């Protein structure tokens, strides 16, 4: 019934990529990149999240309806952050 049974090596590769990204983010934290430290760290965190969601959680192989449900949670989160910051960051 599962149209997409991934080869097992895909999971090991994703895991390896996740550990390499962990090593990378830990290593970069030791170097002073000024304001870019946080940007780099969050970019790496988002990359790790996407690997987990797309492959470990199989969203890549799910119907489009699942994509909409997945995106909905994150879009509402971004709306909350955006509207809240547009207030706090623009106060005198």
């Amino acid at each position, binding site marked *: 019934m599962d149209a997409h049974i991934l080869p097992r090596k895909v999971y090991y590769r994703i895991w390896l990529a996740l550990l390499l990204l962990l090593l990378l983010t830990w290593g970069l934290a*030791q170097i002073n990149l000024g304001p870019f430290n946080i940007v780099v760290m969050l970019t790496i965190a988002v990359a790790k999240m996407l690997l987990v969601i797309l492959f470990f959680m199989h969203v890549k192989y799910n119907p489009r309806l699942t994509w909409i449900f997945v995106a909905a949670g994150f879009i509402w989160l971004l709306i909350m952050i955006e509207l809240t910051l547009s207030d706090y960051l623009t106060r005198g």
Partner: protein
Amino acid sequence: MGDAHTALQEQFDDLEQQKEASTLGMWTFLATEVLFFGGLFMSYITYRSFYPREFSAAGQHTIILYGTLNTAILLTSSLTAALSVHAAQENRTNWLFRYLIMTVFLGCCFLGVKAVEYHDDIQEQLIPGPHFRAGLPAQGQIFWFLYWAMTGLHALHVLAGVGLLSVIALLAARRKFSDRYHHPVEISALYWHFVDIVWIFLYPLFYLIDRYH
């Protein structure tokens, strides 16, 4: 045995439809979880933007080794959770059980490391309040309040995941799942991966920012 007739609930046409419905249901729940944690992430962003220097000073006291170790443990537990679903898809029920037990074990390791870390944090007087560590700015307490609240809430989720996957492992041992029917394994794994994702963000926010001195 986990037969199609015992597994299929009457409101669904077939197992495929039932599986899609349970996946969507889990993602709906996870969307509420995103917003649940989102409120705390929002607080972190807001207060960090108010008190960047104070957060930076207070943030020097989290223990990077524990945080990094726990990230590796959780990422690996996500691998074993994914492999358990894979084993179910291939009807290798012995391996389904083994991977579930490995995932539960790694979840317990995470909680063990966290317990040791919390103990060290308490020794270092990093609890906000009248006995907060001397020498740190007062607003540093906000950082530590968020640390306890967010990692604590996350640890509760890990605990819930360990309980959930233990039940699934028990059912797997009783041969309740097969290649045709393993939705409970899949959606429990989804929950576990979500808990992993929350930690993926907690790790840089609490352990890595401004640590290059």
